[in-house]
């Protein structure tokens, strides 16, 4: 098994795990972690594409490597906003849950 295929399978596996976790876990923190896992899987695939498309003598195609840095920054910012919202929600409601309370009549 070549290294490219191995990383490809690992990335796909991470994405599958993440989507599963996103669906079955009701807690927003778990969902956030699942989304980060999803991001890691996708970023790994960027690395695979970079390696596969590399010209002879080069370690990798630089374009996907440049793209993945932007992707990581975006994922990091999203995580930061989500954590800030979670903390605010916990301070406000005493628990961080997405379940809607009953509407006031």
């Amino acid at each position, binding site marked *: 098994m070549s290294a490219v295929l191995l990383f490809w399978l690992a990335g796909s596996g991470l*994405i599958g795990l993440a989507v599963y976790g*996103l669906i079955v876990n009701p807690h*927003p923190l778990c*969902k*956030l972690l699942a*989304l980060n896992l*999803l*991001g890691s899987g*996708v970023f790994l*695939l*960027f690395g695979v*594409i970079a390696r*596969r*498309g590399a010209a002879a003598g080069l370690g990798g195609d630089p*374009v*996907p490597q440049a*793209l993945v840095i*932007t*992707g990581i920054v*975006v*994922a990091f*910012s*999203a995580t930061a*906003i*989500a954590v800030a*919202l*979670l903390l*605010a*929600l916990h301070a*406000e*409601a005493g628990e961080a849950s*997405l379940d*809607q*309370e009953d*509407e006031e009549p």
Partner: protein
Amino acid sequence: MIPLQAIAETGTTPGGALLVLGIVMPAVALVALIGLGGRAARMIVAAALLFQLYVAVRVALLVAGSATPLAYVVGGFQPPLGITLRADGVSALMMVVSAVIFLGAASFAWKDFAQARGQPEARLSLIFWSALLAMASALNLLFTSTDLFNLYVGLELLTFAAIPVVAIKGGAETLRAALRYLLFAVFGSMLYLFGIVLIYGAYGTLAISAIAAQVQPNAATLAAAGFVTVGLLAKTALFPFHLWLPPAHAGAPAAGSAVLSALVVKGSLFLLMRLWFDTFPSLREPADMQLLAFLGALAVIIGSVTALRQPRLKLLVAYSTVAQIGYMFFVFTLVPKTAGDIVASAAWTGAWLQVVAHAFAKAGMFLAAGLVAEVLGHDRIRDLGGLSARAPLVVLTFAISGLSLMGLPPSGGFSAKFMLLAAALAEGHWVWATVIIAGGVLAGAYVFAVLARMMAAPTKAAELASIGRTRQLIALGLASVSVLMGLMPLHPIAFFEIGRFP
């Protein structure tokens, strides 16, 4: 991977630099805003948004005058490495629409997010105004970029600017709404990114024109198109991904809701149309496109029925957004792969008229709903009685916005739905035609249910707050645009076709 001469990209056209100004100026204003602080905020925002309108109108006039798209090759770097900004007819249209609606929303929020003299600076107003500028910049980027990764950056900027607007009121309910919105949006953007990496792996480029020139219907491309589409559907809140939208849009302050519903959801829709009509035009298989139209039809029916059952006005208006977005997805099946006849042009024009008419009608309606909540101190639909006597302009605004949502003539909504309906019938899609008519009837039901309540006798004597006339006139003005659009001739509009990738 691709020969450079295969990239048929025109260079910078005269006036192309305007496209850069449209993206950069709001960002520069944003930096100035943070540097100078909240006291200067409103003046900076007003100047930036007026300049935005000037740029958008200039772009539209240049595109209309030359009947060719504007283009700007950023930094002189040609694609595939560089990025070309390009404004075709629909980009110019959306730039003008968004500039007008931003100005309307900003003038509406002028008093609400003021910085009181002699008081310590409030963070909330600074957050609101900077989010507004960031959204304006991100939308212009989405409307003009021709690089799939650059578009991703625009999409993320838009989401990150929209989240604070949702959460700005605080309170557990809006924080939950913002969090749910964020989770959906990040999920969508990760799927989009997954699709992007597959496309780059297959074609070695992310420039739309270069991909369109060599696209093949192979497994990798189809999978990529599928992932990108599902990601964008999550951000556009098409059924079944609509659950985040109503609480998020209903929880924001009125001016914020207006911008979110009128423009922000259209950002990812615009990208979806770029994808299917410009990037992968040859992949538009009827069966796949029927699926998008089917989800659109479900959104129309389920969104409208759920709107009917809402106890609160702002939630009703938000569910109506879910329904109205559904109409826009009929374009994917009504404009066939081998386009060129008048029926396809009618469907194309109808879809864009629906985007614009909904933008103005919904902006007007959300501002009206905000004023209702301010007058009465609540927005429970069953206690709306007596409003027509106290705030007739607000009721009028709600009514004429409703006209466009229902699709009654004369209104932009009527023109849009009529053209979509005519195209559906001409192509033998009687199912979509039925849904378009049924959606109109259901919209009539929820609009009239609210109007009837507003005109009923007061249910209980309540202390009514007074609202300024200016804000009522702003809401009325935005809603009137959607009605005035109905005076245009019912004919495909050539401007919308300018510069479509073949």
